[in-house]
């Protein structure tokens, strides 16, 4: 029964992915309950202590509990990732659907703009913009959201281009549906499967980008914990305190893996297209 095998494989991926992300979400949501210490309470007597019953993930160079910081960091990292993809998603769907639906000069204009954005070394752009406007959680979300929509825009445009000549779209135009109605009620919902998969995968890369920025010290600023800046803290003591880098690293790893598994799992059973 090779067919059955093919069908059940992606659902296993989906189950693992949702399990992982679900676990991280529960941990993040219950952070105030689960964490036995304040994430930024300093304990001068327990500097760099290895994992113990009191501090499950050990403490850092200021004596803060790594577990508490990990849990509150999960809140920040996941929220930032999700909000970034909301901004990028809205922009990408808007630009992609306008471009694909109306075509002509508007399409040329929007797609050339997308190409320019894609050619830009985005990371350096972000670094310089943050240097200009300063870094806060809000700024990080905004800047990563505004620079992360290009792939999605191209995908949406391609989907809309194939969908807009379908007969049901033509018939809908014939019975008088307006452009906005066609895009919002018919075209975007029918392209939603690939859009959704891309957005799920986009959360993973948004989390990664936020961590990278924070690791470089230009992202989420201490003392607010995020997995990225926890790794940054761990850099100095990498040789002696392995627990400080292991757990936030594991957090990022699980989040990325989880979102990718969900994305893969959703991509296959739908066959890409309904």
């Amino acid at each position, binding site marked *: 029964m090779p067919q059955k095998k093919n069908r059940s494989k992606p659902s296993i991926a989906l189950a693992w992915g949702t399990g992982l992300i679900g676990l991280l979400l529960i941990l993040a949501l219950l952070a105030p309950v689960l964490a036995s210490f304040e994430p930024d309470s300093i304990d001068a007597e327990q500097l760099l202590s290895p994992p113990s019953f009191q501090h499950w993930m050990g403490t850092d160079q200021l004596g803060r509990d790594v577990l508490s910081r990990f849990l509150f960091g999960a809140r920040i990292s996941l929220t930032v990732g999700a909000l970034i993809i909301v901004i990028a998603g809205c922009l990408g769907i808007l630009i992609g659907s306008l471009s694909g639906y109306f075509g002509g000069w508007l399409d*040329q204009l929007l797609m050339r703009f997308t190409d320019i954005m894609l050619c830009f070394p985005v990371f350096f752009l972000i670094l310089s913009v943050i240097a200009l406007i300063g870094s806060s959680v809000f700024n990080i979300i905004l800047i990563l959201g505004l620079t992360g929509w290009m792939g999605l825009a191209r995908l949406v445009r391609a989907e809309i281009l194939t969908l807009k000549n*379908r*007969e*049901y779209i*033509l*018939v*809908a*135009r*014939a*019975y*008088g*549906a*307006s452009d906005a*109605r066609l895009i919002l*009620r*018919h075209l975007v*919902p*029918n392209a*939603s499967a690939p859009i959704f998969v891309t957005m799920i995968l986009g959360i993973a890369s948004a989390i990664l980008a936020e961590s990278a920025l924070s690791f470089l010290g230009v992202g989420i600023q201490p003392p607010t914990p995020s997995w990225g800046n926890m790794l940054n803290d761990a850099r100095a003591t990498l040789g002696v305190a392995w627990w400080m880098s292991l757990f936030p690293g594991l957090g990022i790893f699980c989040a990325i893996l989880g979102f990718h598994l969900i994305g893969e799992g959703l991509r296959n059973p739908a066959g890409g297209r*309904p």
Partner: protein
Amino acid sequence: MLLSAEHLTKYYPLRASIFSRARACVRALEDVSFRLPEQHSLGVMGESGSGKTTLARLLANLIAPTRGTLSFSPAISDRTKDIQIISQNPWEALDPRMTIGQSLKEPLIIHRMNDIRDRLRRSLDLVGLDRHCLNRLPHEFSGGQRQRIVIARAMSCGPKILVCDEPTSSLDISVQAQILNLLLDLKEQQKLSLIFITHDARLLPVISDSILVLHSGIMVERGPREAVLNKPLHPYTRQLMTLSKLHEKPQAARGAGGAGCPFWQVCSLKKTECSEHLPEIVQISPEHWVRCCHFL
């Protein structure tokens, strides 16, 4: 007259590249004229590539004609409401993500009808579907049922003209008979006018009151049903009519385009001038027109 079309012509531009202006054109439809009285059905006969679908799209206001005019009687106030289109492929004509109920409601919402529930029920009754289907998705239905749903949607806002673009060509013969009967019933009960586009001449004797024959986008003959079926004038029409009797062999294959008569290469009556210019359309009897150099 509900509708009259004068010299309808549509060229599609061919573009060499995105930066250049349109250079060449494809002739999709050339000089098509007809009139559609009330409660009348016009059969449009043509093979693929004859411009049938272009004609349907022009009538449904999906594209604008390059030349020529479409004029309507005052009875047709809103083209998106009074002219509805039934397309060829019922598998493609319904939004796969919408339930049947949502799909059927769409035109009613757009045209701001107030008695949506009543109209839904009435149009379902018209096509013989029961109300349980409203919450289901298109993929749960067979081709014939889908075509019924499409017809129900077209009928829901009370159109005056139904443009049917090969509504049965992708259906089984037994289902085709059901759908055609339904369209005939609707025509009588709802005082509809039909424009019935088909490549199957066998359907024309029943479904159409007058017939228009297209070849490579050119109207070669138009006339009342009896005249065209029993005494076709254009050699192309004659060939189609013999072919529809199935047991007889066709004499020749299809001809190619060019400046002249589209049929000249395979025409048994061809003259030298046929290849050079397209003959004008000639009136044979009050309602019968033909475009062939033998009748000039």
